[in-house]
């Protein structure tokens, strides 16, 4: 009994010592669930960035420590993750990933005055007047315009369908693509929505087939595209798909097989092609991590935090926010600077194509 008391006493003493001498920063995204591979990319990127920053002595003489939140792309879970992070007194957040998670969670961070850098592309993320959000990725409306214009020019005279998965991200992107197509005089032959998470899309495939559609612009995630492509192939329909930044996921290739060569998508200029990032790319590859998708963005988000903190000489919200808004930052994805809404001033999107399990800028 006495021994237990003693242990308890020691426990109390230990816990009384402040544990968080480090700057606590966080990432949040789908670490589990069907989009877990994106969460994994973010985590890998952030971990290496923090290791690199700490190796150089951290920021303002203190080390950075990483917290990881898992929202599984569920808006409700995102809010509770945000509350948990606020309680842990983080000073910076990189996340969330799904627009439908980022939007509700950002209100929590805004109230708690925590600056955040996100890769979510829905326009609403930065359109609500929140001062704490900085978007290091392009917006769906830019993305949709690039995709729509490309489709209208490249597939002139062919029938194009626009399909979405009813999610905030998917519908937003699909609407923008449809708008861009309209503006170019290429009215979509079909406008449909599907339910994400199902397995059978043969109804949609037959509908596309009977309408003579050869190109499908899709707003949504890669899992459904893989299924649609597979089922289209089974039904003898040769379908080209134009998707958004979520198509960067290599899971698309494992799930869709060779049919993935018919996938075009828009994504920010490939950070791996940035000559200034060559060192970091090599470091990732040495650590057996391919810096694809969101890996480099997570790295850049941490660089943004470190540089903004050094410029502001503080981790207080008001100082950090001002530094991020007015400064410009050298990151692995290029020179970041933000407009009044918090949108990235870098040029947005390029059209890519999958080819034999790798993606590259589409051949003109």
């Amino acid at each position, binding site marked *: 009994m006495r021994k237990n008391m003693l242990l308890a006493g020691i426990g109390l003493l230990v816990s009384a010592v402040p544990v968080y001498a480090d700057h606590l920063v966080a990432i949040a995204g789908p670490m589990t669930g069907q989009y877990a591979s994106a969460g994994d990319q973010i985590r890998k990127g952030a971990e290496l960035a923090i290791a690199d920053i700490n190796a150089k002595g951290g920021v303002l003489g203190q080390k950075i420590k990483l917290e990881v939140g898992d929202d599984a792309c569920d808006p409700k879970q995102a809010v509770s993750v945000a509350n948990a992070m606020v309680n842990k007194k983080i000073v910076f957040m990189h996340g969330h990933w799904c627009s439908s998670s980022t939007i509700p969670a950002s209100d929590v961070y805004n109230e708690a005055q925590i600056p955040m850098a996100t890769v979510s592309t829905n326009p609403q993320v930065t359109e609500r007047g929140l001062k704490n959000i900085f978007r290091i990725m392009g917006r769906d409306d830019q993305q949709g315009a690039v995709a729509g214009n490309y489709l209208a020019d490249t597939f002139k005279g062919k029938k194009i369908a626009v399909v979405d998965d009813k999610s905030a991200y998917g519908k937003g992107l699909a609407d923008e693509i449809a708008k861009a197509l309209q503006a170019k005089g290429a009215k979509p032959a079909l406008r449909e929505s599907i339910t994400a998470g199902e397995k059978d899309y043969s109804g949609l495939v037959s509908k596309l087939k009977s309408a003579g559609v050869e190109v499908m612009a899709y707003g949504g995630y890669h899992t459904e595209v893989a299924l649609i492509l597979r089922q289209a192939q089974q039904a*003898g329909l040769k379908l080209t798909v134009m998707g958004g930044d979520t198509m960067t996921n290599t899971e698309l290739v494992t799930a869709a097989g060779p049919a993935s060569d018919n996938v075009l998508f828009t994504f920010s200029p490939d950070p791996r092609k940035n000559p200034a990032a060559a060192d970091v790319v090599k470091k990732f590859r040495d650590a057996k991590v391919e810096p694809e998708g969101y890996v480099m963005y997570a790295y850049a988000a941490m660089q943004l935090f470190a540089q903004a903190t050094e410029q502001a000489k503080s981790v207080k919200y008001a100082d950090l926010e001002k530094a991020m808004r007015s400064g410009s930052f050298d990151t692995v994805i290029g020179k970041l600077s933000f407009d009044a809404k918090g949108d990235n001033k870098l040029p947005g999107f390029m059209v890519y194509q999958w080819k034999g399990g790798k993606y590259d800028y589409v051949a003109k």
Partner: protein
Amino acid sequence: MNVVKNKKWESGKCMALALQQLINGLTLGAVYGLIAIGYTMVYGIIGMINFAHGDIYMVSAFIAVSAFTLLASLGITSVPLALLTVLLLSVLFTSVYGWAVERTAYRPLRGSTRLAPLISAIGMSIFLQNMVQLTQGARVKPIPPVVVGGFDLYASEGFTVHLAYSQLLIVIVTVALMAAFSYVIGKTSFGRQQRACEQDPTMTALLGINVDRTISLTFMLGATLAAVAGVLVTVYYGVVDFYIGFVAGIKAFTAAVLGGIGSMPGAMLGGLLIGLVEAFWAAYLSPEYKDVATFSILILVLMFRPSGLLGRPEVEKV
């Protein structure tokens, strides 16, 4: 609806689309039907809805993926051989799962309130989902196409009706299995015991029949059918994840209720109906409202025939 509006609706093409959707719907419906039989058999014998049944189906799909991967690594390339092995392995392991679920989650609760096994079933469903998520990962598991190709049945004005071999496989296996099952239930001594337990478990026990054993076997048979459905779906769609049991379970449960819960032909009929409604609704109206249509039909049928299409009127059991 767009199609109808802005398309000259030629009759040939219309026929072709209908035929294509008939094929797609039958394939989907056969899978729902196979799972639905598991619900209906268990309900028939112990009067409870086994909500973990959808997850048993999910487990079998994962076993199928593992088995396919294993066979591929062993260098077995003959498709019929691989299919047969995977089917056997999956049936074997899944029926063990079915037995274990009954033994651990339901048998200890036999004789308690009606609600207890129901809640236990929901718990079991959550347990199985999380177990697979943790051990297999949350990512989708793809397999390379196993049964490839198919043939064109009919072509009209640019629309070819395509029947994939994998669809043919699903329909043939389902029909064969249904025939075997009707035989087992109708003609064998196990079938007689099973039907006797369904009618009056106490009396059956008095006649010297091991009721617990019969119930266990019923669970295993239900799991067998779910296993076959799991393998077929893996072959057809090529991707599985830990969550597929939920959607498929709900649809199959609906099928069982639609056909009349407790009735095996009813379960199959309900499955086919739901498959067809989904296929035609998605093609002619909107894929978006497909589930609304399915469940509206369920409500309508239950309003006019509360015991389902082929259900017997009195099913009150405690």
